[in-house]
């Protein structure tokens, strides 16, 4: 896989490799950078960041996530039960 550039929406999320990527923002000064986001693992990156943050092949193994593991993340704080309306 290749690193993202400012002009193209990347093919995969650097962190979880999900293939659905959203363009979140263009730089206020035109053409400098683009911010992308992954709707699966919610990772966000800017096209001008160091390669290990934008290129799925260079993303550090220690920080990778697998989409299938996301539902089992710990919920903090727990969601309390609704009060009964009386």
């Amino acid at each position, binding site marked *: 896989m290749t690193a993202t550039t400012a002009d193209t929406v990347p093919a995969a999320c650097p*962190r979880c490799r999900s293939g659905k990527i959203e363009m*979140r*923002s263009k*730089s*206020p*000064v035109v053409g*400098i*950078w683009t*911010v992308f*986001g992954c709707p699966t*693992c*919610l*990772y*966000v*990156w*800017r096209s*001008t*960041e*160091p390669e*290990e*943050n934008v290129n799925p092949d260079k993303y*550090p193994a*220690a*920080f990778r*996530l697998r989409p299938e593991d*996301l539902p089992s*993340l*710990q*919920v*903090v*704080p727990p*969601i*309390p*039960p*609704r*009060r009964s309306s009386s």
Partner: protein
Amino acid sequence: MRAYKDLREFLSVLEQERQLLRIHDQIVPEPDIAAAACALTEIGEDSPAIYFDNIAGYTSARVAMNVHGSWCNHALALGMEKDAGMRDQFFEFVRRFQQYPGTLERVASAPWQEVVVDKDVNLYELLPLFRLNRGDGGYFIDKACTVSRDLDDWDNDNVENVGIYRLQVKGRNRLGIQTVPQHDIAIHMAHAEARGEDLPVAIALGNEPIITLMGATPLLYDQLEYKMAAVMQGAPYRVVKTAKGLDVPWGSEYVLEGRLLCGQRETEGPFGEFPGYYSGCHKYPVIEIDRVSHRTDPVYDAVYVGRPWTELDFLQAMTTSAPIFLQLKTTFPEVVAVNALYTHGLVVVVSTKIRYGGFAKYVGLRVLTTTHGLGYAKVVIVVDEKVDPFDLKQVMWAISVKVNPAGDIVTIPNLAENLLDPACSPAGMVTKMIIDATTPVAPDIRGDYGEELDKPLRTDQWRTKLMALAKEMRK
């Protein structure tokens, strides 16, 4: 004592005191901003704040970092002389803390209302966001005050909460917020969720330095941070109400208004956290932002978090030590001072007078049952009253000669601990330790302690005289 009206006034004081570096060269958001802030932690004790005003891709972004990042800056934030020592800052902080409560000054309008964006909010455009550490899951707002009220007790100002929580920008108008059940906002959120309602929040970003310290202080649930800020600055604290009824500092640079969404949890993290480790990912609550207001050319204020010490450790220094000290002192008036500066009080050093043999261990145990001690205070070192707990050379001397591990180490297994402490096993549980580094007194007759060395007569007079001469010589 001094009441800074806003962050800009404090930055100008730092500049006058030669404690602010302005960087006009163009930088890229990553990795330059975090790298510069990290480098500041490596260039000495008096490291200045840093201010960037030429960030690639932004038209007029301004970012300040390390604003509280040295004892000089911390002293100036408190309105003290910039060379005030740690011990003096501690006792002054404690003195003011005990004056609680101060008062609020409510005014109708504020400079942050100059520009309002309430349609198509895009935080990535509006804020100069950047990644701090390479493994962070995104861009975090980490030095803003999040304000909330209790939906069950809406008009009670004392339970309004102003707290600093890490906020991950996960979408154009969507934030994740880290709250643990011990946080006051978690109580507000639990009440709102039990009612089935969203919780209104206001996020005040870029503030004068005192409210930031108060937002980092573990106050009691019914103590309002603005009223503590008022006694800390020696003047009523000026606030403006949002349309929803939340009080926001008059001097804020940005105010983000939105709702903590009822019953929603989403992937959040990791974030490089205060112990010097990443936090991992959890499912945390979500905030949707409806409206952003800001001053013209707003200043974005952030804190670098890395391996300690960083600016974060100054934010968690006296703000952690003072509440522990005051709670201990209620039980044991003999306690002289508390140093909880290290990693948010995972290590606590207490100096105390000794009533009788074994007394120091009870003081140590009491540290564990203070409200902050419950989730931190993993290692407690108790020293004699003559040992300054803020002077680690003295503390190490006390440990060197006054500790016999055979009788001076108490460990208690399986106590609750903050999840972020990587030593926990399992997460949230840890063994805690008390080191009694005081001189044994009867009926504790261990050791062979004769007469301790003291100072020659007139040492104090000579110190005053020589300090003045040395200061003159170095001008």
